[in-house]
């Protein structure tokens, strides 16, 4: 393990190394997160770290950034060796990190969040005016249009993520920048900004560690990648010699089957009755005049850029943020929910986009989280039937391939992608009639993604209607019977399965449809 079988040239010049890890191990109670990992990162390169969910990527970079202490091993930064670093040491060594779960102080302004660790000062006083001016400069330099005086909590998820990237790249003036799935929650437009920032920083001599689950992106951004598998470092490769398939094989470790086992291209004919009908739903400034119908057994995709109103429509339907106008019919009856609990009573479950804050109860166990919505199904009288519960939990864990030490493990000890699987398992367990799934595959590795999509396509939709969104159009094309295109809060197009070209869909999502026939719903159905 840990040998370098890539063609990284033998170290001619030791000055070339920005960061070296030697035999790093991390043992959590019940889990070996990292086992004798060796990595060599060269100065000025973008170094990708890839692997399945729970492979240990986040743990590894947290050790480098001084957030977690390793159990064994040595870290060499610029030639000096350390057994472990504290966060403050790591900052002194000019290491910045954007962690996987966005970390902002929501009540502080954008400017203050940027400069939280290094205030512009006059002596020991804060120079507020200078703070705002400098923040504005940085935001402008990155071509971002946000007001630095608003609360960070008022930004969109994507903007919050970019804010953290800006902080790591421009404010902290670091030599080593770690981006842990920084692109996972970015809007498409903002992705380009991120790539530009990375290129710019690389040009400025920074070394960047980049974690992502998206193959194209890795190939585009990285110079070399290191593969982690189950806590072992498998190899380091030059990106020039890789393509998508090779990358996938490296991550998963065996020949990877890239296809969903469904009747590709066939329209489902035996759809049931309409379970959900939405008419003229409007929340001013967020989405307008949204109308669609969903039948039992149907998978309806909502395609749109981040910020096009997908999440907000879901939130409107289940009663988190009330729509200003419009009606919702469930099974033909008019409904208006005041809370997600009321919606759940009618068999509507909502999978939130923000799993940390809305999807999980992080200090409960995996078992308790999985069964939270489904306690009714394992009840015997007033009591819970524990053995039935355990069986249901074990089935879900197996079906979704959730990597846990035991079902009693606390959810906040899982890796990011495994948390996401728990969220999906949790709502699947309830057996509802309508699923509203907001990005169920965000941040999960390729094999788990196929797993989740397979479950959606082959088992969830048997008894229910599903509305789904996804960061990639490809996923929607693969599993949806019908796709609605959202642009700036309006439905601007409709595509049926077996009758669509990816390029058409792509341009519609980018707003192409609306430019051609403004105000009208473009129809691509032949």
């Amino acid at each position, binding site marked *: 393990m840990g040998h370098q079988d890539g063609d990284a040239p033998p170290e001619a010049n030791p000055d070339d190394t920005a960061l070296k890890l030697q035999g790093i191990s991390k043992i959590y109670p019940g889990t070996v997160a990292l086992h004798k990992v060796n990595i060599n990162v060269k100065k000025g390169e973008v170094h990708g770290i890839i692997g399945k969910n729970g492979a240990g990527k986040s743990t590894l970079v947290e050790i480098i950034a001084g957030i977690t202490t390793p159990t064994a091993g040595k870290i060499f930064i610029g030639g000096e060796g350390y057994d472990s670093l504290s966060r*403050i040491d790591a900052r002194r060594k000019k290491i910045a990190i954007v*962690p996987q779960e966005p*970390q902002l102080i929501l009540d*502080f302004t954008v400017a203050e969040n940027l400069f*939280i660790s290094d205030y512009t000062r006059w002596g*020991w006083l804060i120079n507020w005016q200078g703070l705002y001016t400098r923040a504005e400069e940085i935001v402008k330099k990155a071509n971002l249009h946000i007001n630095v005086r608003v609360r960070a909590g008022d930004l969109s998820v994507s903007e919050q993520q970019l804010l953290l990237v800006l902080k790591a790249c421009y404010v902290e003036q670091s030599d080593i920048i770690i981006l842990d799935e920084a692109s996972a929650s970015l809007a498409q437009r903002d992705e380009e900004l991120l790539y530009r920032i990375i290129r710019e920083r690389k040009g400025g001599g920074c070394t960047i560690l980049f974690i992502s689950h998206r193959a194209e992106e890795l190939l585009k951004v990285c110079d070399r990648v290191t593969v982690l598998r189950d806590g072992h470092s498998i190899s380091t490769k030059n990106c020039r010699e890789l393509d998508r398939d090779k990358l996938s094989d490296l991550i998963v470790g065996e020949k990877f089957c890239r296809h969903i086992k469904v009747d590709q291209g066939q329209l489902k004919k035996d759809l049931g009755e309409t379970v959900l009908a939405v008419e003229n739903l409007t929340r001013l400034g967020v989405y307008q005049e949204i109308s669609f119908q969903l039948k039992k057994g149907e998978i309806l995709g909502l395609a749109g850029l981040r910020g096009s109103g997908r999440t907000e429509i879901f939130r409107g339907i289940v009663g988190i943020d009330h729509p200003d106008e419009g009606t919702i019919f469930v099974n033909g009856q008019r409904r208006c929910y005041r809370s997600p609990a009321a919606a759940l009573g009618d068999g509507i479950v909502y999978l939130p986009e923000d799993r940390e804050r809305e999807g999980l109860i992080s200090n409960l166990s995996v078992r308790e989280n999985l069964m939270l919505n489904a306690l009714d199904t394992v009840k015997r009288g007033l009591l819970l039937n524990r053995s039935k519960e355990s069986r249901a939990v074990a089935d879900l864990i197996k079906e979704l391939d959730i990597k846990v030490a035991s079902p009693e493990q606390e959810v906040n000890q899982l890796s990011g992608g495994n948390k996401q699987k728990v969220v999906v398992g949790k709502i699947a367990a309830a057996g509802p009639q309508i699923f509203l799934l907001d990005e169920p595959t965000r941040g999960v590795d390729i094999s788990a993604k196929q797993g989740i999509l397979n479950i959606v396509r082959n088992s969830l939709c048997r008894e229910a209607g599903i509305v789904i969104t996804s960061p990639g159009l490809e996923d929607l094309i693969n599993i949806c019977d019908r796709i609605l295109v959202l642009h700036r809060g309006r439905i601007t197009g409709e595509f049926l399965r077996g009758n669509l070209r990816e390029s058409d869909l792509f341009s519609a999502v980018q707003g192409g449809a609306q430019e051609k026939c403004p105000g009208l719903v473009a129809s691509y159905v032949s």
Partner: protein
Amino acid sequence: MPRKLQIELFLLDNLIWVLLACFFLLNALITPMFATYGNLVNILYHSAIMSMLVLGQGLILVSGHLDLSLESTLVFAPGVAMLLATRWLPFQLDPVTTIILTLAIGALVGLFNGVCIAKIGVNPFLQTLSLMIILRGLVLFLVPLSIFPLDKVYTFAGQARMIGNIPVAVPIVFIIFLFFHFIMQYTAFGRHFVATGGNARASYISGINTGRMVIYAFVIAGFLAAVAGLLAAGRQDSVSNTMGEGMVMLAFAGAILGGASLEGGKGTPLGMLGGALLLGMISNSLNLLGVGVTLVYATQGALIFVAIVLDRIRIKRRNYLLHREQVRRLLIQEQGG
């Protein structure tokens, strides 16, 4: 933004002062003898001790924790300092040293709490609950009744009056509040302190020593409780073992009325001053109206409840106003474009 909305938001953000003003006007009209110079000075004087606890509790809430032991620190610090000064040491301590000793003991109690919570990871509720009981018990053991009389210099802060018959305690308290308000708003230390309460993990990753911030919070609060103890001892010219009993819950009420929140990262020292003054004003007016002491206590309890509900309503109203403003702007845009 239209002027009316701006004003409304401003009032919501400073709700405590609005409440204070309303309550003041109401009492000026219905309560006899309320709006006299003497009584107003009296309110300030009587609020002084509570306000120190409110500030201490409020700052701990800002840092994302809570401290139940403040009310015991209030009596423990002057009690032990006096015992050291007069009985335990072979020589007499001069009163200034005793004052410094009092404050140092308060800070040390805070340091102990802070270290246990930040470094060992003890739950703050349990930690400070146990210390509240331990310290009170120790005081009951060490000071069977009360220690008196005290030195004139020691009681100066709590008892002396200056021009206009204003107690020196009042300016002392105001200066302390202004000092902390300034620190929290305008120094990096203050902002790091607030950030720690707002999101501890984010602050830690940003390179803030969050453990140290939590320790500072408890040390400051212990110190302020000792100041409160000094003022209380001065006012009654003795250290009695029941001083401060039951005050910590009211300190929560004052801090929350003043804008702090159990979630941390919220509230300013000046807001907390408003909260403390409102508490003082309420008990004063109930006294003047001849309401019994026990009922005053119940009323203050009800006030905690009202404080929490008001805070929620305030946040809802604020979000509603902002949403309405957004919608209005959009409509204008659509008409314009």
